[in-house]
């Protein structure tokens, strides 16, 4: 049984037909074609599916799609400019070699984005805590932390 759902996705109001048992991740990837958000574990352990909902980082694989109604959702696709210019965090990940296989990168950047929205100048400890819900299977954490430190808005 389809339901109509309205919410703000990457700055634009959208209306979509959904099924009640979908997760937000399923809607984003399989119906809206936004494949930047990854499914790693599907159990909220790895953080590859992290998106921002009303300013807070959330695992979209555990988020019932029906709860997105009326919310502001930002995915990795929402960070770059319309012309394709990278967000400072994305650019810093490139510049610092913080991307290896790349699978965790969108989730890492979304967690870092949520952190930087709240703290303009996070300490290394705060950065570590900010990305503690994101696993990097290449174990490239040191460079990821470096990139986030370099791109934090207060620097």
């Amino acid at each position, binding site marked *: 049984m389809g339901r109509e759902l309205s919410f703000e996705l990457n700055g634009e109001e959208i209306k979509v037909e959904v099924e009640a*048992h979908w997760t937000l991740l399923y809607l984003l990837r399989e119906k809206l074609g936004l494949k930047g958000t990854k499914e790693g574990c599907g159990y*909220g352990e790895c953080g590859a599916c992290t998106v921002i909902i009303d300013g807070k*980082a*959330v695992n979209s694989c*555990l988020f019932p799609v*029906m*709860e997105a109604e009326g919310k502001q959702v930002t995915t990795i696709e929402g960070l770059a400019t319309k012309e394709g210019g990278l967000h400072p965090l994305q650019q810093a990940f490139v510049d610092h070699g913080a991307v290896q296989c790349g699978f965790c990168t969108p989730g890492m950047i979304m*967690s870092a984005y*949520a952190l930087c929205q709240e703290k303009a100048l996070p300490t290394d400890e705060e950065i570590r805590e900010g990305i503690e*819900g994101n696993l990097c299977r290449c174990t490239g954490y040191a460079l990821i932390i470096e990139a986030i430190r370099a791109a934090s808005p207060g620097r």
Partner: protein
Amino acid sequence: MVRYEYYKPSTIPEALDLAVRFGGDALYIAGGTDVMVSMRGRKIAPKALISLRHVEDLARFDLPVLGAGVTHRQIQESDAVRDRFSALHDAVSHLGSPQIRNVATVGGNICNGAPSADTACPLLVLNAEADITGPSGDRRVPLEDFFVGPGKTVLERGEILKALAMGAFGANTASAYIKHTRRNAMDLPIIGVAVRITVDRTDVRCGDVLCGTAPISEILGHFKDEDLRCEDIRIALGVVGPRPMRVPKAEAGLRGRIISEETVASVAEIAASESTPRDSVRGEAWYRREMVKVLVRRAVMKSIDRILRPDERIYPDRLW
């Protein structure tokens, strides 16, 4: 994906009506970080989920009462919880990840009934009562009677945990929770230990010892020399039995006594003997019992430190 309907009631009566209508085929969902995981693992397959996120009554944040729908993030950000109900603050600071804490609720953590639930031990020592409502009326249950066994609570079909009301306590009191894990985030405790202690006074002249790196035995020697007395103590242990539990014999071993190396060591021993841990992938029984001894002592020290140096705001990671 398992198909189900999803309802978003905005009041408790609406939620209860839905639960009655679906009988055993519906499940309440709050933050969803346990329910959605179980659904995905096909451990449960309800026909309907009844979301409690939009029920305003559950969002109450009015210390010492916490609405069941309060998120771990809200608790973590509360200075009042950090200063006054420190054990609970310790627990939510190391629960899951930011993504989990942003949606997971304290009520959900309790209702899930896991022996490893991080908020259970702190709420036990903070003397919490569960405020429950259901199709057949309201009731209040002390948290100690709330947990029945792994994944089982006293909640009857259709009942909703509305709030957790922590107990009042006087001056010279502080609490701490120590979660013993292999990693800092996204891990369940090997064991969890919470302590709330009240001492008879705070004019102890050993502040500089606490600030330094003196071993615990030396600090306890100072307490003994100055006759620092334990007026009251509550100790709760997690993952050492089928449900989070208090250890009344251990508590009785320190209540009213002078705090010293001997009394604290004996309390830790009794607590370990009252625990009934099992072997599991996370840790073997003998190890858990040994660690109860170590961590009860540390949690007592951390709590007393918080009483004597309230402005230090000891970071939960400090090795007490």
